[in-house]
């Protein structure tokens, strides 16, 4: 990266070359992300297929591997229809508003030690804030569609997301108390020292709360009241077609990957290896078993798999029970847990350090 910067500096003004380097970094993050989104949809259909004793898609390309590309091409060439009396501007802004925050959050996610676009010191708060903007896309899509089903869905989602954001925020408070920082790189570094340094052990309750509210925030099964087919047709995106419809899905899967990555970073040591320093001296093994991006990838993929697993396993929650779970169970659990951590820190009992 430094060589590229110096090369660009040799014939361009400094501001412009910095701009180009940042743009290249953004592309380097977003391209694999969008590819990952495409193949997450494929993985979802395959995994759920096998869980239900079916094959899943297997017609396009070898073993169905070109299915997501075929889907993308199909969606791109479909006509985009706007409903009559729909609020045109908001109707088209809504999918962008859903997608933009889901992609913007990735700017502060560290992939390995130092492998981050913007190493801001309030990274965790920034993620929480930008993630909370996601809901506008859905709410506005429902309103602008001028459809009763769509607005019912968006009202449900709005209330659900706002409720679960509180539980999620409290779970993150526990993380920052233990690691003493809001910077994601520092949070991961605080979990060093192998498997038992990971935050998931002192914070196992908060981890469960975080992941459950993460599933609820992304409107995935079993919290997918946004698209209850039986009662409100398809939900907030009933009136959308073609690429506008695809953007909502892109956003949903991008935030799924984000929540999985965050879980890995905050509770499971991110790119740190579970073996810690045990394997640091062994010549070949240290490369594979030592710290590195592949561990983050592996952990993220596990949590993504959990998402698909949940979808194939659990029936959809009833709406009032979703609210009960969020307000009466998850939030009290986090409050008690934070109080416990507070006492532990105040009296210096820190078995995890």
């Amino acid at each position, binding site marked *: 990266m430094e060589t590229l910067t110096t090369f660009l500096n040799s014939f361009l003004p400094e*501001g412009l070359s910095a701009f180009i380097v940042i743009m290249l970094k953004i592309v380097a993050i977003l391209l694999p992300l969008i590819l990952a989104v495409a193949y997450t949809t494929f993985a979802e259909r395959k995994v759920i297929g096998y869980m239900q004793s079916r094959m899943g898609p297997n017609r396009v390309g070898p073993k169905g591997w070109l299915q997501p590309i075929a889907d993308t091409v199909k969606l791109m060439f479909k006509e985009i229809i706007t409903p009559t009396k729909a*609020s045109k501007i*908001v109707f088209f802004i809504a999918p962008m508003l859903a997608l933009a925050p889901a992609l913007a959050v990735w700017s502060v996610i560290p992939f390995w030690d130092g492998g981050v676009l913007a190493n*801001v*010191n*309030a990274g965790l*708060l*920034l993620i*929480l*804030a*930008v993630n*909370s*903007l996601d*809901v*506008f896309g859905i*709410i*506005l899509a429902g*309103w602008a569609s001028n459809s009763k089903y769509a*607005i019912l869905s*968006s*009202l449900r989602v*709005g*209330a659900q*997301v*706002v409720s679960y*954001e509180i539980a999620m925020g409290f779970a993150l408070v526990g993380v920052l108390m233990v690691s003493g920082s*809001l910077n994601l790189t520092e949070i991961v570094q605080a979990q060093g020292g192998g498997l038992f340094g990971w935050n998931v052990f002192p914070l196992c309750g908060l981890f469960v709360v975080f992941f459950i509210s993460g599933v609820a925030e992304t409107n995935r099964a079993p919290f997918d009241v946004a698209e209850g087919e039986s009662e409100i047709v398809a939900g907030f995106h009933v009136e959308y077609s073609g690429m506008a419809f695809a953007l909502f899905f892109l956003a949903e899967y991008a935030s799924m990957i984000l929540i999985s990555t965050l879980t890995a970073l905050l509770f499971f040591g991110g790119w740190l290896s579970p073996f810690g320093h045990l394997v640091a001296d062994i010549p070949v093994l240290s490369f594979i078993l030592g710290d590195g991006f592949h561990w983050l990838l592996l952990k993220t993929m596990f949590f993504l798999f959990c998402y698909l697993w949940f979808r194939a396993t659990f029936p959809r929650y009833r709406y*009032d*029970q979703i609210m*009960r779970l969020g307000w009466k169970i998850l939030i009290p659990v986090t409050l008690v847990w934070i109080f416990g951590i507070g006492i532990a820190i105040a009296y210096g009992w820190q078995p995890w350090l």
Partner: protein
Amino acid sequence: MTLELFIFYLFAVITLSSAVGVVTARNPVYAALFLILAFFTSAATWVLLEAEFLGVVLVLVYVGAVMVLFLFVIMMLDIKIDTLKEGMVRYLPLGLVVAVTVVAEMIFVMKSSTFDRAIPEPTPLSTNNTKALGEILYTEYMYPFEIAAVILVVAIIAAISLTLRRREGVKKQNQSEQVKTKKSDRLRVVKMGSEQRTEKRMEERVEQQTGDRT
């Protein structure tokens, strides 16, 4: 013009024009959207001032939570735009009085000794913004902070108790009871011997079938 100044002016222009949009937009949903944009760009201005904690919290609290509920309410209201425009002339004098008062107050405040002075040079923080705020909030301003928290809790309880209504004769679901239900509460397994067919019933059946055919 430096890059920083350019960004500042960009955000300032967007903030001001969206603030104008809030009061001029006819559709209340558009007004709320302009308000969101205004919040967001002023958060960006705060980040430019190196107050990144405040900026992020502004987005988190106002844009992410308060405005969602705002939009919620506005979307559910049945608003007729022509009735909104009624009474412009009637309320104009009162509106003008309020506007003049607010402008006058702002001028007095800005001209007071607290604000009307040379801009101090920013002192670079030794630790990061969030840490510095936390330290001062939990030491120097401990009591005001706690009192604010208590007031907020009282407000929450008041809001809940205002909206909480128990009506007689309404069928309600008791969720915690429903969740705690066990299989044994709902399901009774009955042992039954296999059915013994008597001769007579068999005959009846045969008769019925032949009857159907004819």
